[in-house]
């Protein structure tokens, strides 16, 4: 019993990380029509900002987290203005490759600005845990899960019930028409890049304490976020978030209960089989094709 709860708590935390990254990817996919391979790298870059401030000036983790969020916001806007917007007429595949170029630039910049020594970031809440059915649940996990859920809830509310949210939804459904209707699609796209960068950075800040801050720390998160998007369906904003939690839980459970070597392979295989029967994910609908 305590093992099951341990797995659930663990999956809640990793699931939140995947969900944050996946939500960012979907936001960009819907508004900019490109798969952002650089989501993880952008998060890593800003986690470095937090780590360097913390280690060189000894600032508080909360303060540096807020500062890194602000820099993430700026990074997102810069990337959209200088790279994505000039490439508006480029084909979707070429746009994806632009984000690959972005990864290379970021991975190249990191050692120059921040040095090659691995940096550390502490947890948001250093110590303290409660015991639930024999499994320990740290305050940090509770905080991280609540923060991510709260933040994602806020974003869903924003998308569903505000005027700007409406703008995001119409831009996602048809950019040209919404531009004709007077929706400021440029601002919408810019804001989605900024939001996605912030979500990625938060994911990076949550992952960082488990190991050191290094350029490759979000690769697994990035790949899993893509898988979550496919499992949940890229047409909805909610699907990928649920997909993220499902993937995190099923992977941990399969590794623990079935086999630590084949667990991941089994989960991936079953998702592929699932995709064969439901090609647009859990919540996705088949898009209407015009011939």
């Amino acid at each position, binding site marked *: 019993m305590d093992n099951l709860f341990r797995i659930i708590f663990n999956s809640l935390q990793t699931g939140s990380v995947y969900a944050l990254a996946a939500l960012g990817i979907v936001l960009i996919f819907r508004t900019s029509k490109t798969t952002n391979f650089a989501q993880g790298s952008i998060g890593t870059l800003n986690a470095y900002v937090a780590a360097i401030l913390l280690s060189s000036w000894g600032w508080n983790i909360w303060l540096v987290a807020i500062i890194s969020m602000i820099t993430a916001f700026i990074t997102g806007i810069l990337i959209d203005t200088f790279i994505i917007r000039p490439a508006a007429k480029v084909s979707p595949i070429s746009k994806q490759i*632009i984000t690959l170029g972005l990864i290379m*630039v970021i991975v*190249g910049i990191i050692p*120059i600005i921040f040095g090659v020594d691995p940096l550390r970031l502490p947890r948001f809440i250093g110590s303290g845990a409660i015991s639930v059915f024999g499994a320990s649940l740290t305050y940090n996990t509770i905080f991280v899960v609540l923060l991510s859920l709260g933040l994602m809830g806020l974003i869903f509310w924003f998308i569903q019930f505000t005027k700007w949210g409406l703008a995001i939804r119409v831009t996602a459904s048809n950019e040209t028409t919404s531009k004709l209707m007077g929706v400021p699609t440029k601002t919408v796209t810019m804001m989605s890049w900024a939001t996605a960068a912030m979500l990625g950075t938060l994911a990076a800040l949550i992952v960082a304490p488990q190991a050191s801050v290094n350029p490759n720390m979000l690769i697994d998160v990035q790949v899993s976020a893509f898988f979550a998007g496919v499992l949940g369906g890229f047409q909805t904003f909610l699907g990928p978030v649920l997909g993220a939690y499902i993937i995190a839980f099923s992977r941990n459970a399969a590794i623990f209960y079935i086999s630590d070597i084949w667990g991941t392979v089994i989960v*991936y295989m079953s998702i592929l089989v699932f995709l064969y029967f439901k*090609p647009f994910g859990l919540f996705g609908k088949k898009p209407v094709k015009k011939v």
Partner: protein
Amino acid sequence: MMEKLRGILLGFTRSLKRHPHIQFMVFGALLSIVAFLPHIGIMNFSTMSIIAYIVIYTVVALGMNILLGFSGLISLGTAGFIGAGALGIGVFLGLGLPFELAALLTVIIAGGIGALIGLFSLKVDGIYLAIATLFVGEILRQIYTQVAIFGGEGINIGGVKFLGLIELNQIRQWNRSYLFIILVIVMVIMMMVMHNIIKSRTGRALMAMSRSDSAAQAMGVSILKYRLTAFILATVFATIGGILYGIYFQQAPTRAWTLNISLIIIAMVVVGGFKSIYGTFLGAFVIHGIPNLWLKELFDDVSYIFSGILIIVVILFYPNGFVYVWVDIKKAYYKYKLKYAQKKKVTADEE
């Protein structure tokens, strides 16, 4: 005498234009000169290795071009299949099979997985298909690192015996040059194969499919058959690239085949030029060659940033591929020629 020489030269270029296969062969012959340069001290052996990498990447990227350029499909699992080629040849050679049989078995197994992806692609579309292939790539990577037969970190292949007669080992310098020539020969053959495929009924069917599934189906193109063909071809090209990696570097790592490699292959097609065979080579050269040959020496640590910027800039200015820079140069030349002719005319009139 000069007239005669010019006549021969003109005839030669004309026959080159008429027979693309001879063109490929001449290209290959020119490239194989590289194999001799290190021995006369013009080039380092490490430079030759970089060019060998470009040749290997070209073979893989040609397969990717069949998917991206001709069929409008995408695969993010290419790295897994390059790994399949390198590790597969390592395992089969380790079992004591002759090289030719080992290569054949590897290609058949990988082609089978490619056929499965092709079947899968009938149901799944767009980004879902792209990420489904990423699943395949990740599953393959997991298998490489976890199954004992692949030796954990990697396989040491050692010398490879060709045709049961000649054993070539990477350690000996001359053997390395011979291996390089083998790589170039295989690349030229793959270029010819690619040329024949795209100029045939299959190529036209693939192109019809990429524009519109429904229209192609209405014209009698079987979507099942040609999606399978496209994916099998792409995986076979990638696997052959992996086998070339195995025989040239004579070791096969298990952990290297990540998403980044697949993305780099796609980048080569995008940067080089969709639907262009020489463009694919150019793409491989721009993405792997320029950073490793020059940028690294010039900028050291900064080279990675420069290759990233290079990719972004080339895509922004040449969205159809860098190979079209040739068209621009031609245009500029004709413009200049025209201007020059006009100027000459004006001055002649004035006189």
